[in-house]
């Protein structure tokens, strides 16, 4: 047993990591609170397993990151934290079909729970980071998990992964933001992590009903902000396009999505002016 093995006791999924990298251990420890990050506990069941080790009796070279079932990726030491976070996402995206999952950020404040579906790389992490720093509770910065039995959105709180310009945008706007681990030259460029707020971690196992589904699109050339309702049939198609496992869930997934779109306000948002966008979100009822 390596001294650097660790576990992440997240909800709804936990992961046990057999790890030989001291660097990774200390990096990940910075990203999760002590209630979530800890040693592997033999009295708990873990949903996923990951292994981080080198070849040749673990002596030299790049690290292999993967699960018992599949190899995920090779990584040099400096990139390990980013690769690890992606590997955890990959485990959830490839192996879980209990929840209907789609690419979306989810935030909540009072009676409002906003689901913000958008493709990867379209700035939803930045958007959810800003909303969280404005006092919203973060449920997820990248995957919305819908419990098909209850119709509720289940949180999946994790460090917010910010890339390239997003990092400087957040740093400029919120100099106090808890940004950790800047990792340069990954395949996605520079990656850094924003720690979830205390309220977000406190609510890490509290599901809620979505009130709004807003399809956001940042476009710097957009002359004025567009914020308008869209039809249910358009909304459901766009959710399907953003889904990880709709094709696996079939009819069950369709029924759950139909119920979801009928119970929320569906909107689309195109913006260039961030301040205006944020104030629109604050005015929502």
């Amino acid at each position, binding site marked *: 047993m390596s001294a650097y093995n660790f576990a992440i006791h997240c909800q709804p999924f936990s992961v*046990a990591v057999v790890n030989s990298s001291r660097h990774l251990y200390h990096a990940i420890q910075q990203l999760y609170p002590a209630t979530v990050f800890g040693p592997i506990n033999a009295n708990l*069941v873990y949903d*996923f397993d990951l292994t981080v080790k080198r070849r040749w009796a673990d002596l030299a070279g790049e690290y292999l990151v993967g699960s*018992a079932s599949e190899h995920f990726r090779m990584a040099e030491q400096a990139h390990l934290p980013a690769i690890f976070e992606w590997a955890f996402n990959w485990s959830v995206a490839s192996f*879980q079909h*209990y929840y209907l999952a789609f690419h979306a950020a989810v935030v909540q404040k009072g009676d409002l729970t906003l689901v913000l579906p958008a493709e990867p790389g379209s700035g939803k992490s930045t958007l959810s980071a800003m909303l969280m720093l404005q006092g919203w509770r973060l449920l997820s910065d990248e995957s919305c998990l819908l419990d098909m039995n209850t119709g509720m959105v289940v949180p999946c709180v994790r460090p917010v992964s910010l890339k390239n310009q997003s990092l400087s945008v957040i740093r400029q706007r919120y100099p106090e933001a808890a940004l950790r681990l800047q990792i340069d030259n990954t395949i996605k460029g520079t990656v850094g992590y924003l720690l979830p707020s205390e309220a977000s971690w406190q609510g890490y196992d509290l599901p809620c009903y979505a009130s709004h589904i807003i399809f956001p699109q940042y476009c710097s050339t957009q002359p004025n902000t567009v914020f308008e309702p869209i039809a249910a049939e358009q909304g459901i198609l766009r959710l399907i396009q953003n889904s990880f496992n709709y094709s696996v869930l079939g009819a069950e997934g369709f029924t759950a999505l139909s119920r979801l779109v009928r119970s929320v306000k569906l909107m689309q948002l195109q913006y260039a002016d961030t301040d205006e966008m944020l104030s629109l979100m604050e005015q929502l009822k």
Partner: protein
Amino acid sequence: MRSQLLALFQAPADYARQATAADWTLLLAQLRKHGLLAKAYFKLQQTAEFDRVPLQVSRQLQSGAKYAAKQQHSLFYELQQLEPMLQQLTCPCLLLKGAAYRALALPVSHGRLFSDIDILVPASSVSEVKNKLFFSGFYEPEMAEYDRQYYLRWSHQQPPLHHFERDSVIDLHHHIFPPASARQLNIVPLFEQAVAIPGSGFKTPCLQHLFVHAAVHLFWQEETHRSLKDIIDLNDQFSALAEQGLLASLSEEAIKIGAAQAVTNVVYVLTQLFPSDSASAYLQQASVAAPQRLLCHCFINTLQDKGIMPAMCKALWFVRGHRLKMRWSILLYHMLAKPLSLLRR
């Protein structure tokens, strides 16, 4: 390390009663590795102890079951797409392995994952079927010429055929064992005793032949990474044969095809891993030759993930499997020509 998988499939109810949290964690990892989440879900669900399975585990198992259900749905869709082509064929067309188990709704198919659709046609009809498949959208993707020739000359199937739009892959077989082998199997009975699927142009081999094929597939080849899943499948298939009183005819059919030794060995392995009266009784039959015990124990060793003995057994199994699939002359040629063809590329 004791295999959690074997413990679970040997006695699902006991497992659910006794497993510790650490066991469940390890089990989930092993089930994922072997594609057995869904199968475990069905096995545990059939026991009275299902409510002892931790919620977290049963949700992961359900995830697997949903994935398996989606695959089975896709399989039926694909078979429907092939139906018009079948109506034009003049030869019989048999579904093999997973597709056959599913079409017959055998217990072994519950939660079983599969990747390709395996079909068997008479050797003389291969080009006719291949051409018809082409006009149904299935083509042969480019592959290294050496590998392609390997399929065409020495293997019992055509290079895999992919659909140009859908993700489906068909393995078109003209035999169940490589013709390059010194061992000649007689597959005429497979066609003669094939069972028609009501309302479809497809047929399947009878249950006994499905077992013989799976046994040949497991025992006379070189790979070991799927063996655990395969032996668990064979246990389900054997139970189904026993329930229907077909064990006496299983040994007759195995002899007719020329695969009695593979079948006997598999049943011997079953007595070691999943002890049952019917498996022991099968080996007592006068018509059944003695199992190759040493070889069977070598096989059982290959089911372990780690260890020196399992590693040695896997190496032996690899060499032996190749040796069985190819005559010495062909194997020697292949051992020299394959690396050369890679170098040339």
